[in-house]
């Protein structure tokens, strides 16, 4: 029962990930067969740009910038990062000859999976706190007592912190390999 319940909760996130891979495969096949193969080269640039734009959320969260609502920017971060990843997957084209770009793509796919895990954890945390607060209010506990009880749930928040400790390093590993790929292309490609 618990396993089924958990699977139902994570299913939407599995679908989002599967759609990313599936859409990239279908579009890649279509672009190869319709003579649009030459555009794939430029999709890497577009995908990278989208992912960079999505980092406005990170800047807002760390108060480097002050405009925009963090919640909205998080949604934009999720959308742009997913779309950018799709474009980069198309660009990579499932043909992994060189290690550096291959590592960049694999790191990106792990980061996307990590991002979806974070999205799941955040959703769980919000729901748990909301439910617990209602439950405690129904028991006519004082606000102080409610806060004390809710403190136990901060473990989930700790989980979010743990998740950040994984998600951010994974992101910078992706960034390192992507940067190396971009530098080598700038150095060796004839523009």
């Amino acid at each position, binding site marked *: 029962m618990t396993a089924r319940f958990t699977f139902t909760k994570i299913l939407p996130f599995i679908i989002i990930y599967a759609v990313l891979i599936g859409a990239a495969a279908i579009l890649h096949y279509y672009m190869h067969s319709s003579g649009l193969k030459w555009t794939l080269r430029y999709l890497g640039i577009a995908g990278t740009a989208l992912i960079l734009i999505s980092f406005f959320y990170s800047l807002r969260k760390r108060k480097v910038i002050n405009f925009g609502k963090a919640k909205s920017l998080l949604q934009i971060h999720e959308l742009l990062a997913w779309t950018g990843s799709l474009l980069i997957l198309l660009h990579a084209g499932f043909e992994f*000859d*060189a*290690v*550096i*770009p291959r*590592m960049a793509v694999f*790191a990106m796919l792990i980061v996307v999976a990590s991002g979806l895990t974070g999205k799941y954890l955040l959703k769980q945390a919000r729901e748990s706190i909301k439910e617990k607060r209602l439950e405690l209010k129904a028991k006519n506990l004082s606000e102080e007592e409610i806060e004390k009880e809710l403190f136990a749930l901060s473990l989930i928040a700790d989980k979010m912190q743990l998740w*950040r*400790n994984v998600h*951010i*390093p*994974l*992101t*910078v*590993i992706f*960034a*390192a*390999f992507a*940067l*190396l*790929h971009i530098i*080598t292309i*700038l*150095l*060796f*490609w*004839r*523009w």
Partner: protein
Amino acid sequence: MVKHTALISFLIAFILGVAGIIVFPYYTINPGVMIEDHMHLKNDCLSCHTLGFGAQTEKCVECHRVSGIGIRRVSGEEREPANTKSSFLHQSIINIQCYDCHTEHNGLSRENATLIFRHDVLSADLQKECTKCHSPQKPDDDIHRTLTFNCSECHSTESWKPSHFKHELLGEKLNECRSCHESKQPVDVLHKSLGKEIQCVQCHTTDKWKPSTFNHTKYFRFDGNHPSNCVDCHDVNKTFETYTCYNCHEHRPAKIEKEHIKEGIRNFTNCVECHRSGDEIDAEGRRDKKRGRDRDDN
């Protein structure tokens, strides 16, 4: 804490990547398999690439001298036999840029290193002299055997077909349609009845067969009572050169004879000589011109 982990992760990944690129460039950054003949250069990217500018022609021609292409190998050894076509082609290219036609990292085979050939790298004059390179490909059929002008008059450098044959290039032979189109001559009664002296261009154009320019009005003008239904007047199983107006109940021989005799017209066997249409007034005019020869009152 996260910042430190992130920074260390970045540095480790970046340094490992750079080390990999320096030690194993072929495996870390090469975008595809190189052709077999270039494999000895696989870890020496800069033998072909100039940093920031890609693979420049200047580096290619250090080994592949344009004057020797097709004649000598890179090692200096003479090619036996020499590829004179390749030699001529490469020496004819204006402002030669290898990357216009060739690529690398596209597989082991040499063929993979040649992309589609662009004729516009040749001079305008040479582009018109197709047989300099394509002589063996000239078709040996009836049309092409006798032609002496350039292929480019009818064919493009993009593809052989479709061609745009310009009949005016045939000059004096323009009217000799049968010399090329004999097998396409229609076998219906109308066309079979035409003598050899009749040329297709008398009714058809070189642009298209239909509609033909045959002008029936010259003989008889159709109208509502006289529609363009061949079998009404012609025996389509025999010939179109003869006709009769007596297939119609309106034009019964006895009635026609009576009316013409009454008018004093004795020679009325060739109706369209006077009646170029169903219009009686039109016939009057023609009849007046012919007075004096056939009428009794002259």
